[in-house]
């Protein structure tokens, strides 16, 4: 039976059009941003604004700097030796390099989900409430509530509610990745960074994650790095194309994929690259 004939399901969350969701247009603002690993310039003159509660996808070939930029949004690159940056990144008007801003509190506001799902070797429950434990929440009821809320938001609650105390490592790949998302959500961040979250997953798990992203953008601003242009097209509202550390084009996803203004973008998305 073709999907056309399926009666519309009533239980689905009605997604509000993007226009209703829009908050601040330059929620994350990247200005003339350059970044070096030692002598190697990884990013050059990046300037883009990420609106609040939208999904922005970074695409581009490997080594184009999209992951570097993503990891700089919560300063995960700080631990790398010999890094240097110029320009500035502000979140809601405040620079992430503000000396008064502890990197820890920045990361609490800017959650991150990694390419390879990395649940801790703990129980599902402990994984989800990890961020709360880290800040010293001891109240069991509070932790349980946060756990349920986050797992529900990550569309994982029904699958794991009966085995919260089992090891998280017993979950399937897609479930693990959703657990990692739940873990990031439990921290109540404003921004979720996703670094190729589906690259190791099968299409069904990928589909579930994409559904999740689609629903989470009601609440969070999401920046996603992906190698799959189809994925970028499916989930994002805006897309930025990077090449060799430069920002080639940044526009609405429809524009980028239907009628890009740059020849390089056209070549990349149509597979005529290189």
């Amino acid at each position: 039976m073709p999907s056309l004939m399926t009666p519309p399901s009533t239980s689905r969350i009605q997604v509000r059009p993007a226009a209703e969701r829009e908050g601040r247009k330059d929620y994350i603002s990247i200005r003339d941003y350059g970044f070096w690993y030692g002598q190697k310039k990884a990013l050059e003159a990046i300037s883009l604004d990420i609106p609040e509660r939208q999904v922005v996808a970074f695409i581009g070939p490997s080594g184009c700097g999209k992951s570097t930029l993503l990891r700089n949004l919560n300063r995960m690159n700080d631990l790398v030796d010999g890094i240097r940056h110029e320009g500035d990144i502000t979140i809601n008007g405040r620079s992430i390099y503000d000396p008064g801003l502890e990197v820890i509190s920045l990361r609490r506001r800017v959650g991150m989900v990694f390419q390879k799902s990395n649940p801790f070797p703990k129980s599902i429950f402990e994984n989800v409430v990890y961020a709360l434990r880290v800040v010293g929440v001891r109240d069991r009821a509070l932790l349980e509530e946060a756990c349920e809320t986050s797992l529900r938001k990550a569309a994982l609650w029904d699958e794991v509610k009966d085995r919260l105390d089992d090891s998280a490592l017993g979950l399937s790949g897609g479930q693990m990745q959703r657990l990692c998302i739940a873990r990031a959500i439990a921290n109540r961040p404003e921004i979720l960074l996703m670094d190729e979250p589906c690259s190791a997953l099968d299409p069904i798990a990928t589909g579930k994650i994409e559904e999740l992203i689609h629903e989470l953008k009601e609440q969070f601003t999401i920046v996603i790095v992906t190698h799959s242009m189809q994925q970028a097209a499916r989930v994002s509202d805006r897309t930025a194309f990077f090449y060799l550390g430069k920002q080639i084009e940044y526009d609405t996803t429809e524009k980028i994929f239907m009628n890009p203004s740059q020849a390089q973008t056209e070549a990349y998305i149509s597979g005529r690259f290189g």
Partner: protein
Amino acid sequence: MQRFFHDELRQLRDDLILMGERSLDMTRLVLRAVEQGDDSLALQVRGMDDRVDELEKRVDREIMRYLTLFGPMGSDVRLLLAARDIGHDLERIADEASVIAKRAMVISERGPLKDLLHVPAEGIIACEVLRLAIDSFIEGDLAKARLVLQRDAEIDALNRRNYEELFGKSGDSAKVSASHVELIFISKALERIGDHSKNIAEQVIFLLSGEDVRHAR
């Protein structure tokens, strides 16, 4: 698993159905205008055409967006391809209705025609066939779609009789007036509507079964 972008397919389908209903309404109204010589109805029909054109553009935009962003597969591809043709056929139907309305106004300018030949009958069948075509799309009914293919011949036959009665061997050429010529155009337009309905039904068959029945004997 239902994906969020399937909502857009549903939207596309709803828009197509709306287009179909609009085109059918126009056909019905224009037939009434022809029968009753009602110019206001004909004007109304001509006004409705713009709305259908808008819908066609919207449907096309939706199809393009979906093809670009969501990488459709299987029945979704057929739906999008069929939708584009169906949208086009429906727009053509609306255009034909609009043409009929123009002819009807020309006729009524010259005074009402007593003898409308087989046009009213032809119109009824055309409406029925269009209804059938739209329903087959809405309901996904293969039988209805195949019925459309058969009944299209009835319209063709009536159209031929209209022509023969006026200009054929047995025809009485003295009787022929300028209005009759208009009537022949109307009959021809109805026949075109039937053809478009048939095209829609062919697309529905393609959509439902993947079978290409165009140009089949």
